[in-house]
């Protein structure tokens, strides 16, 4: 028996790890978003630090490279006054044949308080959370296709910032959903927060019918997918998907599903356009849209720091 209860919650239902948004109560999501709101002002001050994680060591364990995400976690941890250690494991110990759990055991011996984990395999942070010392907290910074909960939360923060009430929204997620951990985290968060209609838009190779079981409406036609929506979340199309058996070419994808000003006109006049970055201009999104009035792609990045500060400060305050 691995975990009897949701492994990210303690017996009191408090968040001790952030592994996935799935299974988290609405109140926990609201607590994170509200806390993020208070940190946003910290980030605008001249001295951008609070002492909540003073003396704590946060290890960024990136088994898969991502300078951008790692940097946002690093900034968030430093603004909470934590000591941050970045380990680019993709190029070090596992390349020498050390197992994942040996790596974790070694780092635990260095008295880590928190692991921020990015891994190419779905579920890896669960394995780490199961095997690390009880006082160590794990934050999933993206695992395989499974989850990217802090991205999901910062997306929710962004939507709440611009749209206020989740219960009246229609949200479209467009692109490579089958391989996207961001899409899965967004879908769980949107469902939990009460969004009545979530659409998953893309070709059948990238948007499988099984997604309906997650509570989304599957649309293979772009116009149908974004007509009348309040929020459009465009996903990054990974290079390896742009040609081969999933899609014939980036150009053909753009023709069918790329977000252009013409297609955007089908959405509500006040619709916002989001993207987890980094964007592929001319593949999933036209520059005119990415840089246009509807785009909130840069504010997402700003909110991302505050949301990650909120997550780290909340889980560090709860005991297993």
């Amino acid at each position: 028996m691995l975990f009897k209860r949701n492994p990210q919650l303690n017996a009191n239902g408090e968040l001790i790890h952030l592994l996935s948004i799935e299974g988290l109560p609405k109140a926990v999501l609201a607590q994170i978003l509200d806390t993020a709101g208070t940190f946003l002002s910290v980030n605008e001050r001249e001295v951008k630090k609070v002492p909540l994680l003073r003396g704590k060591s946060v290890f960024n364990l990136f088994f898969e490279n991502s300078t951008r995400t790692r940097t946002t976690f690093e900034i968030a941890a430093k603004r909470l006054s934590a000591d941050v250690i970045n380990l680019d494991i993709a190029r070090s110990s596992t390349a020498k044949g050390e197992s994942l759990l040996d790596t974790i055991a070694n780092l635990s011996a260095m008295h880590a308080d928190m692991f921020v984990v990015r891994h190419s395999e779905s579920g890896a942070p669960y394995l780490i959370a199961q095997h690390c010392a009880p006082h160590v907290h794990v934050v999933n910074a993206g695992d395989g296709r499974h989850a990217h909960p802090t991205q999901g939360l910062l997306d929710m923060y962004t939507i709440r910032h611009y749209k206020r009430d989740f219960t009246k929204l229609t949200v479209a997620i467009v692109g490579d959903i089958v391989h996207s951990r961001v899409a899965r985290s967004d879908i769980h968060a949107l469902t939990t927060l009460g969004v009545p209609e979530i659409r998953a838009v893309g070709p059948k190779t990238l948007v499988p019918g099984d997604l309906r079981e997650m509570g989304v409406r599957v649309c293979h036609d772009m116009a149908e997918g974004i007509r009348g929506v309040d929020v459009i979340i465009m996903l990054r199309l990974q290079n390896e998907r742009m040609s081969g058996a999933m899609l014939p070419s980036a150009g053909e994808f753009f023709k069918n599903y790329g977000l252009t000003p013409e297609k955007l006109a089908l959405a509500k006049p006040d619709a916002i356009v989001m993207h987890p970055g980094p964007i592929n201009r001319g593949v999933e999104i036209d520059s005119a849209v990415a840089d246009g009035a509807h785009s909130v792609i840069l504010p997402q990045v700003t909110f991302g720091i505050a949301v990650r500060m909120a997550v780290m400060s909340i889980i560090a305050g709860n005991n297993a």
Partner: protein
Amino acid sequence: MKVLIKNGRIVDPATGRDETGDLAVAAGRIVAIGRVAADFTPNRTLDASGLVVAPGLVDLAARLREPGHEHEGMLESEMAAAMAGGVTSLVCPPDTDPPLDEPGLVEMLKFRARNLNHARLYPLGALTRGLKGEALTEMAELTEAGCVGFSQAEASCRDTLVLHRALQYASTFGYAVWLRPNDPWLGNGVAAKGPLATRMGLSGVPAIAETIALATLFELVRDTKARVHLCRLSSAAGVELVRAAKAEGLPVSCDVSVNNLHLTDVDIGYFNAAMRLTPPLRQQRDRDALRAALADGTIDALVSDHTPVDEDAKNLPFAEAEPGATGLELLLSLAIKWGAEAGLPLPEALATVTHRPVGVLGESLGSLGSSAGRLVEGGVADLCLFDPSARWTVTPAALRSQGRHTPFAGYELPGRVIATLVGGHLAYEAAHG
């Protein structure tokens, strides 16, 4: 050695015999069932009051990891596990290291197994050299060395031309070919395709990976008349195809593993690598279809699919973990559990792990074929004595197998093996208490 088993519930699934009585064993054979002559003078008497006396179990899929893991004493530990599970005959697939593609390897394995004086070992030879799916093995030589059939194990034969020729050749001499129906391109995900795999972000194996392979195999069987055993069915759609093929009269048989019979993909829970299995656990309707097909005989046998996996290979993220679970010590209990849940009498549940698998092996068992998996006067004394009312909790650390990973850890299961006899030799006795 003469053994008298007294006052047991004697169950022979092959004949439906289910009665209380005595059973006498001498010179490796059963000499009397029911009533034993008063002048029988045993060296050893076993009181079987409250116990079932059944034929020893026959498991059509048990990996023993030898050759390849001799230094770890794998054969010893896994054969001991078989004894503790009441399994007296087992078929092992050829995906050892190196694969069983040369008679010398098979002879050595059989020799080592014989010396242990435990379960009877029936190896499957590799269908192609190195299991590479390119060149045929010396099937006649391998058969002489003791192989009961030929298999690709988990290595698919990607080239249909090679597979066609392999079946033609095997059919010429009446050799059985054992294949797991799995399209190599569609079939290399880590969980069953479906809402759960999609939600968890695990790469999925669709049911069509099984049905496409089955459809191809059935066409090849129609053409070559080869005798094919289909290993470890996993899907409802696959069951339907097999049912139709059998109705048509094709010379095919099939089995299902204890894992797919009892579990579904939902059991993966929070990425529990103990549930990383091949074939993958599918959905409830697939499991229901497999259970019904085992009951109605469409599926011939229940197998443990015993695959010991060490800690280092299992303590990994789900997709990276090595597939497989230990199973020899669970086979009897999981057969009984299924039978009870399906509302079947005990003999019918036992049939799936005794004479029905022997039927799959057919003539390849030679002189044992007429009595293995059965209770026959004059037949071989391979016996399993178990307490049907005892329940035990699966505790991985207490298993004899070196594979400590099982999806059933923590389960409370019915049926506890008390003694196992192979060829009249008392090879296992449970500790008292």
